[in-house]
């Protein structure tokens, strides 16, 4: 198991470098560069050239790539071309914010999605099932930015219960941190909950139809025990896969909600960096996103091993 773990983690390095290289070249193919992005409409050709020289962008592409690669392999994430400040510290602040919201959103979708799916499956074709399925469809169809704005208008403006945007670090003030977390996490969690609910329902229905379940019932086991002892672990496998993918998208895919709630996460950071052609920033955030997604996938794989004793890694 430990060898497996080591191999997976080592494999992470070429993967990160590969994606990083791909992104580097893709970004440089796009028209325009940092100079044009920073100068906006004031971008006269002469001024663009001057700024380009100041930022070191007039070096040939392969030179810039090798310099950047060298720097990155030494663990130096570089300096932002737009702010002139080192990227490492900036990421260090935004990473906890992203982790928090990923965790909180995951909490919400587990808390809502999973039970909703279970209830729908165990009360199939009843009113409860119908309502659960309607809720799931609603959660899937509602765009998260619309939900975000409705939540903000209701809880911040009308009811004055929660702040409308912003972020307070956990270490600074726990209560304020949580108050700022609730709305964005809910906006993100609801859509994910819907996906998980539907997946749980169909997976559980599948398992409930199996012979061994009929056997267990025939043996006289109470339905609760049938569910918990025999069904859930089997039903959870595909659900965890889906949940893992959903959580993976939270690293970099939360741009709109981050924008609305002014939440300083990585999603907004990488999008702004792309629009401003801030090559070092994009590179650094891509590394973080790749690492996060891979680690989450690893956790999903280990969860498999926990659930299904037939799965072994070595």
């Amino acid at each position, binding site marked *: 198991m430990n060898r497996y773990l080591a191999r997976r983690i080592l494999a992470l390095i070429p993967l990160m470098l590969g994606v990083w290289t791909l992104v580097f070249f893709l970004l440089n193919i*796009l*028209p*325009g*560069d940092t100079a*044009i*992005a*920073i*100068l*906006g*409409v*004031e*971008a*006269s*050709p*002469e*001024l663009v050239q*001057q*700024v380009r*020289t*100041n930022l070191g962008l007039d070096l040939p592409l392969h030179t810039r790539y090798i310099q950047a690669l060298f720097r990155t392999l030494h663990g130096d994430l570089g300096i932002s071309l*737009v*702010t*002139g*400040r080192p990227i490492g510290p*900036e990421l260090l*602040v*935004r990473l906890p914010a992203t982790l928090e919201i990923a965790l909180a959103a995951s909490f919400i979708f587990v808390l809502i999605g999973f039970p909703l799916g279970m209830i729908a499956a165990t009360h199939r074709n009843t009113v409860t099932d119908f309502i659960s399925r309607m809720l799931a469809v609603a959660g899937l169809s509602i765009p998260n930015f619309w939900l975000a*704005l409705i939540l*903000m*208008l209701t809880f*911040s*403006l009308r009811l*004055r219960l929660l*702040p*409308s*945007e*912003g*972020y307070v670090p956990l270490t600074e003030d726990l209560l304020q941190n949580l108050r700022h977390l609730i709305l964005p996490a809910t906006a993100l969690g609801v859509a994910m909950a819907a996906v998980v609910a539907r997946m749980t329902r169909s997976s559980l229905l599948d398992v409930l139809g199996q012979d061994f379940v009929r056997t267990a019932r025939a043996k006289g086991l109470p339905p609760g025990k049938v569910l918990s002892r025999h069904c859930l672990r089997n039903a959870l496998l595909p659900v965890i896969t889906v949940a893992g993918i959903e959580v993976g998208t939270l690293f970099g895919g939360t741009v709109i909600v981050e*924008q*609305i*709630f*002014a939440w*300083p996460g990585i999603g907004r950071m990488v999008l*702004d960096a*792309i*629009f*401003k*052609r801030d090559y070092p920033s994009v590179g650094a955030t891509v590394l973080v996103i790749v690492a996060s997604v891979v680690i989450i996938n690893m956790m999903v794989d280990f969860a498999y091993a926990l659930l299904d004793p037939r799965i072994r890694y070595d």
Partner: protein
Amino acid sequence: MWKQRWFALLTWLIVSGLILSGVPASAQVPKRGGTLTVGLLGPIDRPDPHANPNQPALWLVQLLYSYLVQYDRNLNLRPDLATSWERTDSKSYVFHLRRGARFHNGREVTSADVKYSIERIMDPKTGSSRRLRYASVDKVEASDPYTIVFRLKYPDNVLPYVLADPASAVVAREVVEKEDNLLRSEAGSGPFKLESLTSDGGAVLVRNGDYYDKEKPYVDRVILRSIPDNSARMTAVRTKDVDIATFLVTHQIEVLRKDPTVVVSDGRSGQYYILALNTRRKPLDDVRVRQAIAWALDRNAIVKGALSGEGFPLDAGPIPAWHWAGIKTEIFKPDVAKAKQLLASSSAPNGFMLNIRVWAPQDYVVDAASLIQEQLQPLGIKVQIEQQADWPTYWNPVQNGNYDATIQGFGGNTHPVDWLDESFRTGGTLNITGYSNPKVDDLLQRARVTPTPERQAEIYAEVQQIIAQEVAMVFVYNMKQATAYRTDVKGFYHMPNLTLAGVVDTWLDR
């Protein structure tokens, strides 16, 4: 007798009581202290005044630094580091510095610092977009510590206004040279000091206790927050998450006007939005085609539809009528018949396809494009709207002249020179349509050397008449960009050059 005395006393008491109760309560005395929170339209990129800061960074810079002169709320010049100035001859300006103004690191501000700062902006290696505005300056002389003299290559009456530009900050040389950039603010001498830059693109400022104005600022701290989403920023001032929300446009202004806990400022700001027609492409090289388009547009409808009414139609020149140099009478009225006539006699009598590029995040531009599409249809001009979400992808072709038409705004304008020179001069840096008229070039140069404001206004009016008639660009609207603030925020005022200068006079009634 006593009765008389009593009566006189009583009368006197009553009369003085009446008089005193009629005396208006004296103007409220500003309260000191407190923290003011301001919502900005985006993250601060770099707080270096000379290195092309973006709009939010410019807001920050203007509070941390001092200038020779600054704009007041009516866009006239007022003293800042310079207490007075005069024009000693047609090619020289003399500014007298105040004594006792100090940089945040404690050292007194002298003329050597002013000389260093201006020369830094003028140095091509700094890469400042403001460099060309100092093109008339030959030498900057700092012969005595409190006097600075500008010697010009040719007479130029715009120089003092250029010195009031938020990017023309006076910086402390030793800080710049040590850091090789201005990312820390000990280089400034402004009313606030930079405590820190926050990770979400904001900043925390503290009151400068050594500011030369001993009264101001009144607040102890200013927190700048980046809230890029327009709806969120508007909501933030309603929920008290911020005290002041900046850059509010179109329907946001409409919504806020209905909220009694919020004051919405006058939204006058010096930008103009145009439909740029690339004169290097057929049939847009034909002036009658361009005129047809200019006459076909219903600018009032565009202001109503795209801006929810929060803007001024530009039916004459690019400078809005509320500005001293704006033309007060309209040149264009929506006249489809006239437009059709013009097109019929042009090189494209049967209409043509027109591709209009727009940058997707500007919804007030995208909406305007749709309305223009409708309005040009009766002429047989088929408009295709091309939206781009990525700024460099959108702007690059425009910059290189590879486009038909685009709708864009040029902002930060306070003096007619800002509106006119670089956009309409042959080869100007903002002349994206390739327009060229030697008469206009000549007039623009003449305006700079004309001494009186009345004569200047006349020349600028003439320039605007020509560029409007020749349709160098189709002028569409001047959008309102308002600031909204809570009712307990006192003393604040909106600046038409969109800086936060009003913060210096602001106090909190809490």
